[in-house]
């Protein structure tokens, strides 16, 4: 096996930049000088054959990294599949929270007639809602409210800007949240 291949295998599989002296550990026949020579060979090979990656000096060591011109492909690759929409349940929960905040899970479940834990989790991760306090009553339930990110995303200056037309369902109209107490099982 030639030196350059061994060095290439080590750089490829390592999760940190390695100094030439470290790389030399790979084989008893290697020393720092031979590693440096192998690195120069690899660098030239990668440039000549136009590989998508190159050798870079990082933090006192050497690393194989993709060339900067591929950044746009990789970013695209990263973000494209992840753009997402809120699911139906998440939308419902968010609608309830924005009109009835602050409001607890039990009450949200009650309005929707189904368990809303997963949807709440999503909305919390998305920072559309936050835990804004604790209600009265058994277990002092967590109450949720919308965030400034929510306002930004949907283009409202404040919660007063939320449309409240006649056709809004009754459960969303009442300003005062129902007692969160007593219903926690």
């Amino acid at each position: 096996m030639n030196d350059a291949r061994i060095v290439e295998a080590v750089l490829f599989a390592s999760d940190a930049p390695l100094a030439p002296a470290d790389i030399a550990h790979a084989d008893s026949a290697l020393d720092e000088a031979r590693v440096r020579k192998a690195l120069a060979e690899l660098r030239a090979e990668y440039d000549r054959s136009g590989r998508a990656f190159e050798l870079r000096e990082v933090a006192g060591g050497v690393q194989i990294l993709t060339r900067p011109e591929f950044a746009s492909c990789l970013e695209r690759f990263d973000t494209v599949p992840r753009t997402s929409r809120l699911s139906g349940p998440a939308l419902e929960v968010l609608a309830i929270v924005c009109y009835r905040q602050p409001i607890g899970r039990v009450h949200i479940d009650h309005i929707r007639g189904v368990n809303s834990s997963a949807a709440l989790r999503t909305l919390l991760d998305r920072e559309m809602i936050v835990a804004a306090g604790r209600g009265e009553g058994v277990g002092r339930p967590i109450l949720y409210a919308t965030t400034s990110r929510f306002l930004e995303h949907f283009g409202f200056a404040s919660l007063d800007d939320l449309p409240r037309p006649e056709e809004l369902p009754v459960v969303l109209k009442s300003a005062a949240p129902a007692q969160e107490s007593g219903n926690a099982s």
Partner: protein
Amino acid sequence: MDSRVGRGVADDGLLVVEIDHYQGPLDLLLHLIHSQDIDIFDIPVAAITARFLEAISALPAADIDEAGSFLEIAAMLVRIKARMLLPAPPGETDHDPRTELVRRLLEYEQVREVAARLRGAEADRARRFARGFVERRPSPRPADLPLDTHWDDLFAAALRLEANAPEEAPREHRVPVQPVSMREKVELIRAAVEGTDRVEFAALVSPWSDRAHGVMTLLAGLELGRRRFLALRQREPFAPLWLYRRARRPDRSFEPSPEGTHE
């Protein structure tokens, strides 16, 4: 596949088997059969049963739980031995009582063979290394990922929320629950303590807001306690209630209950 080191030769020239080295009773049985060049389709049940019982008699007393599976197979062997001494029941002229045993042994042998191949594939894969360093683009927080949802979507969802619930406080609401069954809750608890050996009562009921689930879960817990499958512990009134699976080995029951523990 696994170590076969657990053998030696006893004074009487017979093989000594240390069952610690076997994955279970079928593994041991296969070892006895192969080491004595027995045709698996014509097992001398009496002889094999004797060897098997001898091997498991050396079981450490502490390992009662593990012994259970060996005893189960021992019982099966004894049953087969007994049936081979009896004349076949009328109408079942060609029924060999060993059939099911042979089927299980062949099946298990196949499992061992596949497991050995998996081990080979695993070793082979372990000689190949993936890229260790992924160029660090810190993965964005979920909140920073683009969100393709507009106010229209949200408002439409708001309008869909029919006033299916009366406006009174939820506690007065008659929730149209599906019937909550005791069996379902017993199953839930068993599954929950399966891997961890204990579970907090609150964790079992948290997915449901309806009180009936809480009550039924508690009843199921009490029933399992009565059957000595579980122990229920609460350090003081209103403290979290824990359900513990009872240790199946009498010598390794969980730590003695501290003073002031309610059971």
